[in-house]
């Protein structure tokens, strides 16, 4: 009986001690990978390769990581594009492309992923992206001894560089190189077609109530530029709320909608045609609407499909031989809902 009590007190003492020593422990484990991943001691013998991620952090990974957890839809798409989809051990609740991603274990949302779930998936590496994940998540994972590779693509060119780098880090250098080269080539081809054509002045509709558009420094704005479109919004905020007066004053040539808008874009378009203010916009009267898939705002290889799709819709004359995308009833990269 007495020994039992001693044990309880030892347990309580240990808990108190650990309460005070937590950060010291953290400091020891702080480098991207502790000596040998504690999650899978069996793999400790496997050689670790050091790579720099997009943020310049040194990350130590197995040469060909077998278990990858992705914390953003764009990363999930990129891993599949690198033909490493079968190594994806976990994805977020928002990872919906390719459809196969839906079959992977979920680890919660990008902002608050479930650490327990990630740990029990025994990842060799967790992929995070600066645009969607929080620094605290990355720090917490590293404290648990899990390697985190972070991407940070703020422009279309960044996406290409980032894909190439990620391919190398995940042991799919050849495939990554091919993907990147393919994207570069498609961009060059698009630039050739659009050469000499003035950029269309577009208004990208993120939201209609209230009207939210995108500022010039976002990834989305860069994607628009590559498709031969220039956003009429010049304020420096990333997701500014714009008044209908300002939209009328700017008089954009096209309204661009994304397929991820909560309503079917066609419903939004129909209702805009009847609303005061909107209905007097030239783009609305002329039915100059372009609808693209959500890929336009995802820094992943599929971005090129969305950029080309948008370019075809707003510069139809630049694609004379293309399989007739009707300018007034734009095709949708998601399968032509319109």
């Amino acid at each position, binding site marked *: 009986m007495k020994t039992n009590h001693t*044990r309880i007190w*030892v*347990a309580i003492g*240990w*808990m*108190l001690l*650990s*309460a*005070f*020593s*937590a*950060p010291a422990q953290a400091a020891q484990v702080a480098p991207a990978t502790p000596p040998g991943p*504690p*999650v899978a*001691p069996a793999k400790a013998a496997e050689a670790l390769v050091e790579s720099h991620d997009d943020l310049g952090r040194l990350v130590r990974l197995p040469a060909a990581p077998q278990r990858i957890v992705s914390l953003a839809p764009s990363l999930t798409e990129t891993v599949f594009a690198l033909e490493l989809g079968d190594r994806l051990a976990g994805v977020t*609740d928002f990872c919906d492309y390719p459809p196969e991603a839906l079959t992977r*274990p*979920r*680890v*919660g*949302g990008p*902002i*608050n992923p*479930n*650490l*327990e*779930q990630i*740990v*029990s998936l*025994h990842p060799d590496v967790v992929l995070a992206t*600066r*645009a*969607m994940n*929080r*620094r*605290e*998540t990355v*720090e*917490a994972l590293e*404290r*648990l*001894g899990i390697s985190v590779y972070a991407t940070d693509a703020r422009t279309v060119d960044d996406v290409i560089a980032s894909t190439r780098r990620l391919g190398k880090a995940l042991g799919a250098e050849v495939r990554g190189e091919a993907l990147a080269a393919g994207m570069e080539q498609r961009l060059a081809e698009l630039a050739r077609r659009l050469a000499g054509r003035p950029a269309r002045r577009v208004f990208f509709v993120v939201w209609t109530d209230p009207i939210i558009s995108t*500022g010039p*420094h976002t990834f989305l704005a860069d994607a628009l530029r590559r498709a031969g479109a220039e956003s009429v919004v010049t304020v*420096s*905020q*990333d*997701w500014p*709320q714009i008044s209908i007066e300002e939209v009328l004053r700017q008089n954009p040539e096209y309204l661009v909608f994304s397929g991820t808008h909560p309503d079917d874009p066609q419903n939004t378009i129909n209702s805009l045609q009847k609303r005061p203010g909107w209905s007097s916009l030239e783009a609305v009267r002329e039915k100059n609407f372009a609808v693209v898939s959500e890929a336009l705002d995802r820094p992943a290889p599929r971005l090129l499909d969305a950029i080309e799709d948008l370019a075809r819709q707003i510069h139809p004359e630049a694609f004379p031989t293309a399989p007739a995308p009707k300018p007034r009833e734009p095709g949708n990269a998601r399968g032509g809902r319109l």
Partner: protein
Amino acid sequence: MRPLTLRKLLLTCAALAGVLLLMVFFSLKFGTRSISMFDLASLLYHSAMGQSDQVSSDFRLIVLDIRWPRILLAMIVGASLSVAGASFQALLRNPLADPYVLGVSSGAALGSILSLIWFAELPGATPFGAFAGAVAATAAVYFLGRRGGDLDSYALLLGGIITASFLSALIMFLMTTISGRELRGMAFWLMGDLSTPSPVAPGWLFLVLVVGVGAIYTTAADLNLLLGGEQEAMHLGVDVVRVKLVVYLGASVLTGLAVSVSGAIGYVGLIVPHLVRLLFGSDYRLLIPATALGGAIAVVLADTLARTLVAPTQLPVGAMTALVGAPVFIYLLRRRMA
């Protein structure tokens, strides 16, 4: 008021501590991955004996490195908020007062946003910014609430509400005009979140908790008299000015502590003191320790639910406490009016 005996005080606290211990055990057991009683017991036993190599590293990581720090944080936050709530209710002689009524949480939110704008690259900047903001708001409200060297309850309450709404307006202004990629987690944080480990060792947080609660406890007998009115208390020999100052500072520090590590977790500081009063009477000498334990129980329970109900997705714990707290509160209110 029935006289409070030491026996009753100790028995009540021991019973609540027992419930808390049980709650902690269940919280350690349940999660995305449920752990059997036997495994959990053997894990705790071996860790306490220093034989951590005897247990699966997976369980150790999940139970000791993920769940335990989170439970510690939940207990500290719950105790702080509940004692702060009980204190403000006595100080303002208003049963509807909660820890956030005097603008501390708005100050903390503004502080953390500013830290994200100015010191985005510094790890752990958010909690320190939040604490600084809480202190600044507390000081501002203190000066607004002073009348001739004394804290006036009504001036304090009005000053707090004005400060809170002014700071909220500033927050809205910053959040809509500044294009910070780092502000993304902000809305999440404002809901109250325990999933982010605190950069400060829980031991230090615990120390602040003990000092804050201890300071308030020294005034417990005076608070009982203060509830009958300031004049009456003064005639009975209570140093009203000093008591109010100690309670105000103590409760503000406790709120600042809770807000800086977990965001604004609502309803705990309102409901727990009322429930404790209902169960054990309103003698502050018993109310303060019982509220501290009750708050710890409530937040550990809420957080356990938040991370298991829709696992692997986690709810913000603030949503959980509001979901349960609001109906309980309405019930109490109706009962009181009946």
